[in-house]
């Protein structure tokens, strides 16, 4: 009996080891996706501050490229302004004024993992809630997955759970933009109707069928088209416009969605 006690006392740290490892493994495998996200957002309170520092420092390094991009965007917007002011319609302006874009800074980002997440520095207190679309001057980035009070986690296109309703420019056929891992510069448009006229080089934009994005936000260009004989749909490889590894400022589409539409869609 004594020797057994001795043995237990001498090896008591083994129990601590087993306890800690069990705890870690529960964290690793026991958390379901929602708890995982909760861990992510609660962690954001702490890590958000640090990531913000790093983003601050890094933004200086990227100023030149950023400037160039903004100048280009400026030029493009001016051009559009000119052409639009010619054909200004009152109705159109009314509709646009409902769309409010919140400017947010990307403070953490990844592209190399199987499921990537982006953290931005705007949250519920800035009017950002779950389900809002996120894009930048180049195109679609992702959808807000979880909004904390001051930070939000965005599910980017580069996540296996991401699915965004898109269409081919010039046709009304829609498909869903998904990602199967690997190449961070391309994604796949699935469930495109068989008869859709689409070929390499065509532009893909958002469909506007979900409340996340307004219509016609650029997504990418078609790289190749594959026919799926079983389901009579097309599988379209898309080269994304947005270089996800180089994200600094993004817009969150915080347009109030129509409650009636939400209710109808929610009932599905």
């Amino acid at each position, binding site marked *: 009996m004594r020797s057994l006690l001795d043995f237990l006392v001498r090896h008591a*740290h083994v129990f*601590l*080891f087993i306890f*800690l*490892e069990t*705890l*870690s*493994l*529960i*964290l*690793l*495998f026991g*958390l379901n996706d929602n708890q*995982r996200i909760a*861990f*992510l957002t609660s*962690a954001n309170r*702490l*890590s958000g501050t*640090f990531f913000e*520092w*790093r983003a601050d420092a890094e933004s200086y390094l990227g100023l030149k490229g950023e400037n160039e991009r903004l100048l280009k965007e400026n030029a493009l917007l001016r051009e559009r302004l000119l052409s639009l002011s010619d054909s200004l319609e009152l109705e159109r302006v009314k509709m646009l004024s409902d769309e409010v874009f919140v400017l947010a800074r990307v403070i953490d980002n990844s592209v*190399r993992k199987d499921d990537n*997440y982006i953290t931005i520095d705007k949250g519920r207190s800035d009017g950002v809630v779950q389900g809002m679309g996120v894009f930048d001057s180049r195109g679609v980035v992702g959808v807000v997955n979880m909004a904390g009070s001051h930070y939000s986690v965005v599910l980017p296109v580069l996540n296996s759970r991401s699915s965004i309703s898109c269409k081919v420019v010039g046709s009304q056929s829609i498909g869903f933009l998904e990602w199967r891992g690997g190449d961070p510069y391309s994604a796949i448009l699935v469930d495109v109707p068989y008869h859709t006229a689409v070929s390499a080089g065509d532009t893909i934009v958002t469909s506007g069928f979900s409340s996340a994005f307004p219509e016609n936000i650029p997504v990418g260009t078609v790289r190749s088209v594959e026919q799926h004989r079983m389901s009579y749909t097309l599988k379209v490889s898309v080269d994304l416009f947005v270089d996800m590894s180089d994200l600094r400022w993004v817009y969150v589409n915080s347009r109030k969605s129509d409650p009636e539409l939400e209710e109808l869609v929610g009932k599905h």
Partner: protein
Amino acid sequence: MTGLVLLQVLFLNRISLFGYVTPLFYLWFIVRFDSSMSRYSMLLWGFVTGLLIDVFTATPGLNATSSTLAAMIQPSVVKLFLAKERREVIIPGRNTMGTGPLAGYLFLMALVHHSAYFLLRSIPLEDWLVITAKIVLSTLLTFIAMLAVALSVEKSNQRRPA
């Protein structure tokens, strides 16, 4: 430790050579545990360090599991590479172990820790070639970094007047 954790999460985690190799240099904190520490505090420190890294990288439990394992085996691995039983308190380093054994010690620690890390991370274990490459290359990178730091740290200690 704070410095190491920040170094890891703010800079090192950004490194991903060829998409495979990520140095996990925070292991340095664990390999430098001195022999006067109780097994409990080693385990707890190992766990806390890993968990902190997890908080930043949104990988709950991944680093905690591997660094707790590293903290558990640390005293035995030190003993394995020490020429003879030592009574006094030692911090693993060149002065206490000699360069050769130190290198062996650091390599084995990195190998065990990184194997646990990348195996857990790659579940379901499908692509063995990639997993092995990740383990081997990252182990080498962390090992070289730790050895370089270990050697330079002791050099600067010697220069300091006693």
